[in-house]
Structures are given as C-alpha cells and as structure tokens.
C-alpha cells in the first residue's frame, strides 16, 4: 500500500471506529499493519531546514571571508559567538519538550550544527592549522551527531551520514593503494560511526524509522562507505568485496511491515540490488570477469572478507526464513565468483566466469518473474528488464550486421512493452496482490 493510501486509511480509522464499522481492536491492528509515518508538518520541517541551511551557510561564508583587518580575538569572537547563540536557542527548544514544533527542532539543530562547523573551521583558519578538510568534517560529525538524537533532526542525521561517508572515502583515496600504515583504519571506524545513528534510528525504544528521503541517504551513504572500506581492507580496488558489501545491504533484515512495503520504500533493496546487478552485468565481459576472480584470491585471506561473508550468510538465512526469495535470488550474484574461482586457473581467461554470469543473470531474471507468478513477492518487471538488457548487451557484442541488430532490438522492445502491459493487467485483476 502506498504512503498516500496509508495516510488516507489513518485519517479514516477514527470515523470508522465512531460509526461502529470497526472495533477498537480492529482499528488498532490496521494502524499497526499500515503504520503511516506522521506527517509532523513535513512542509514546515522542510521550510525550517531550508531556512536554517541558508542562515548557517551564509554565516559560514561571511565568517570564512578571513577578516584580515580584525585582530585575532575579534575573529575568535566571530567564530564562537554564533555557536553560543545557536546553543542557547537549541536549549530553549529542547526545554519545550514535546511542545516544540518539528520545524523548530529541525532549524535549531541544523543552525547549531553549522555554527559548530564554522567555529571549528575558523579556529583552524586563524591558527593556520594543517590537515585535510575531511579531517575537520570528521570532528564536525562527531560533535554534531548528538543533536540529531536529542532534537530528532533528520537534516542533521542526513548531514552526518554524508559527512562520515565523505571522511571514509577520503581515508582510502588520500592514502592511495599499496601504502599501508597511513590514514585511519576505516574497517573499525566506519561501522562505529555508522552506529552513531542508532540512537535516532531505531532509537532507544526501537520504534523510530527514517523518512523516505532519509532512508535513501542512509542506504546510499552506507553503500559508499562500505565500498570504501572494502577497498581499504584489500588495499586495492576489490571487485568481489564490493559485491559482498552490496549483498549485505540488499539482504538487510526487515520486520513484517518492512517486507510488505513497496520496493520504492525499500532503498536498501533497490540500491543494493541495482549495484549488484550492474556489477554482475559488467562481469559478463572477459576482462572484468578475470579481475573479479582475481579479487576472490586476494580477498579470501582478509578478516573483513570473512566478516562480510558471515553477515551475508546470516542475513541470507533470515531472508530465507522470511520467504524473501527475490532478494535472495539477486544476492546470489555475489556468491558466483567464490564458486567460479576454483574452476578458473591462475592467469587464465575470464571467459568461463563471464559466460557463467550471463546464465546466472538470466536465471535470476527468470526467478524474479516466476516468483510473482507463483504468488510470492517477486519483481516481474525488473526480471523482464534484466532479460532485455542482457539480450541487448549480447546483441551489441555479436558479430552480425546492423540490420539484424536493429530488427532484434525492435523485437525485444515490442516484447518488453507487451510483457509490461500483460503484467499491468494481471496486477489490476488481482487486487491486493504482491507488489514488485
């Protein structure tokens, strides 16, 4: 059920209870099953965040001008004054407790976060401190994340997630490959920093869920951070570890309500699956396939690899028990290199693995379609799109005339559109049927 429908249902329930259409218990069950996120003045929250962002960034820009003519103590006052003022405002908002409006919490937290960043940057500027700007981002994140917890600020949480991902990527790109011993060990730091969001989501009572946009940022930054950690752990670009990281995100356990949500509201499935499928499609070519198998060889001795394997295996067992066969089918793409590695000798061609990947992708696509027809949670359209993409890629490689390729593309396009129309009609005929 879409968010709009869930909100509509939430609005109707009190009237249905009053009119005796539903019992109190029935209404409670419906509320639990189709829990609508409170709108909480979403527009107000956005307005609060945008206003705070404008004030805060303006403040930083004005202060960062580097007022050469002011003595040091005046510049320090300019750096620390806004911080003190923003802290006083946040204190006032916090004292109001539940009476504080969402936009007030959001604006106060964001302005204070920006003021803290400005203070750190300016002190660093005034004393000509060395170091990368991303190190400053690290400290900024550390001192700001408590504001996301106590003021329940989505904007600060988003900024924190982006900040820690940027810092993690910088640790890997900054040190370069083949030169261990420099930069923070992000294998420890990134998971620790990511755990910093737990007091907000799911919170102490394990009830809070990020809003749609925040979920997307959470997943996108987690993927980016984990990819960076994979490269750090292997001390080089590690194709297979990247696939395992994407599989771990894709299989992230969900509760019953989470599973029932549409794909659009599950960015971990969408982005994790997309990353895996794209990497698998790349691996259908000889050169990337060879590198992929090679990456299995240098990844297996790493502790990070075994940790990822354990996480993926654990999540896969849970997913199997919950009947999430579609995500299991896609996650299976990450296991192919491990199974194919013993079949490929050292320095041999990548063709066997590339061909295996083409067939596995085809099997995955068929599984996604079949699951939907079997009444399970599948993704027939995505399966059809995957088959279409595979055929297009193979046709593009094929040594046939342009005329044949053109005709083949027309046939594939017509078939794809026809299948979509068929699926749409089938879903329309099955009210409440499984979502994609």
């Amino acid at each position, binding site marked *: 059920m879409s968010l709009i429908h869930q909100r509509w249902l939430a609005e109707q329930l009190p009237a249905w209870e009053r009119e005796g259409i539903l019992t109190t218990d029935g209404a409670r069950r419906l509320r639990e099953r189709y829990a609508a996120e409170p709108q909480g003045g979403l527009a107000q929250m956005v307005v609060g965040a945008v206003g705070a962002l404008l004030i805060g960034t303006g403040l930083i820009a004005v202060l960062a001008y580097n007022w050469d003519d002011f003595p040091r103590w005046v510049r320090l006052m300019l750096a620390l004054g806004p911080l003190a003022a923003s802290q006083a405002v946040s204190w006032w908002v916090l004292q109001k407790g539940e009476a504080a409006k969402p936009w007030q919490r959001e604006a106060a937290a964001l302005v204070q976060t920006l003021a803290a960043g400005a203070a*750190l940057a300016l002190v*660093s500027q005034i004393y000509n401190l060395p170091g990368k700007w991303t190190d400053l981002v690290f400290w900024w994140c550390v001192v700001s994340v408590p504001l996301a917890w106590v003021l329940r600020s989505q904007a600060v949480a988003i900024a924190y997630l982006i900040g820690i991902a940027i810092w993690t990527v910088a640790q890997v790109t900054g040190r370069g490959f083949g030169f261990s011993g420099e930069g923070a060990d992000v294998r420890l730091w990134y998971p620790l920093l990511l755990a910093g969001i737990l007091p907000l989501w799911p919170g102490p009572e394990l009830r809070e869920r990020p809003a749609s946009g925040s979920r997307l940022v959470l997943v996108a930054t987690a993927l980016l951070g984990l990819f960076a950690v994979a490269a750090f752990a292997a001390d080089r670009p590690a194709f297979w570890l990247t696939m395992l990281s994407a599989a771990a995100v894709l299989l992230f356990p969900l509760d019953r309500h989470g599973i029932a949500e549409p794909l659009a509201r599950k960015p971990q499935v969408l982005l994790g699956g997309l990353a895996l499928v794209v990497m698998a499609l790349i691996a259908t070519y000889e050169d990337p396939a060879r590198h992929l198998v090679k990456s299995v060889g240098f990844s297996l001795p790493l502790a990070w690899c075994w940790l990822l394997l354990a996480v993926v295996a654990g999540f896969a067992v849970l997913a199997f028990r919950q009947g999430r066969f579609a995500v299991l089918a896609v996650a299976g793409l990450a296991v192919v290199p491990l199974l194919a590695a013993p079949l490929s000798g050292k320095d041999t061609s990548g063709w066997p693995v590339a061909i295996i990947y083409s067939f596995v992708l085809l099997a995955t696509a068929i599984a996604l379609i079949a699951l939907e027809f079997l009444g399970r949670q599948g993704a027939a359209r995505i399966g059809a799109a995957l088959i279409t993409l595979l055929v297009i890629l193979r046709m593009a490689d094929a040594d046939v005339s342009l005329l044949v390729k053109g005709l083949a593309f027309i046939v594939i396009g017509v078939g794809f559109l026809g299948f979509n129309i068929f699926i749409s009609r089938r879903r329309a005929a099955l009210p409440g049927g499984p979502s994609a």
Partner: protein
Amino acid sequence: MRPALAVFAVAVAAQWLLPLAGIWQHERVIARGTTVRLECMAPDPYDPLRGRYLAVRPAEGRVPKPEGMVGRDAVPVWATLEAGDDGLSRIKSLSLEPVSGSTVIRLVAKWPRWGGQTSPETVFVEWPFDRLYLNERLAPDADKLVTERFREGQDRPVAEVRLLDGRAVLTDVLVDGVSIREIVKQRAN
C-alpha cells in the same frame, strides 16, 4: 535532568572543548614560543571549508635518516633547529626520542613512498604546518608574488614559526623580511 538534556549538554561541551583546546594550545605557543624562520616554497590552493591559503612547505623536506629508525611506518621525530648566519633555521639533529629545548619541533618522518629501498639513507619529514590562510582577495596576489620570485630566482619566502614544547604555530610568511599580507595589501591599494 532528562537524558536528552544531558546528551545535549555533552554535545555543547564537546562543541566548545574542541575549538577552545585548539585556541589554548596555539595561543600558548604564540605567546611564549621561540620564533624561528624557515626557507620555504609556496603555491596557492583552496580548502572548501576554510577558504584560500598559501601552501607553505619548508625547503628541508628530505633529511638524513635518524639513528635507530627501522620499519616503513611513519614515526614522530624531534628535530632541533639551529639558526644560521642568514637568520634562517635548519635542522641540526633528529631524534626518535623526545628532546627538550626552545627550538625543538615535533615532525613526522617517513620512508620514501616508492623505490623499494630496504634501508634508505634519507627520509621525508612532514612539518606540523603546511598553510597560511589568506583573505580570498589577497591570496591570488600573494600566489603571484611568490611565483614571480621563484621564476626570477630571488630569495624564497620564509615561514615565521613559534615553537614551544615541540609544538609549532605558523604565524606569518615573510618576503624580504616583510609579511606577505602587508606586501599584497599595499599592492592592492
């Protein structure tokens, strides 16, 4: 006190502690430190959070390996500086153990990144300062001034640094003994 207020108080304290610790540490060095001058090289890059700066790199970047340094990891070393007849300070000695003195500075020594030497004769040193922040209006002129001097083979700019207990604060960059800030300000007017 509610838990949220306690967490907020900790965050507020951390937001003050971090800049104040930096201010205290660096003010102490500026107020009580010994001034040394180091010959350096300097172009004009940009920091997205802190603005334009003049990159300051002391000319002494590669020095004889300190006695007892083994392994490829970067290690802290304590350098004792000595002023020459020209007024510029240079590294007199390097120690892996902390040493005291008014012209001692803590550096980081690293083996050459590439080359695969099993035991190099010289190591790179990383200085605890690498930039002088400048007003964005003045920074391009300062950069131009430094580039011109390099091209014409004139004396290199000199970093003025205060030292205290091994810590260093870069206070200015001088060209012919005059602050680069003053020179570019005069040029702009």
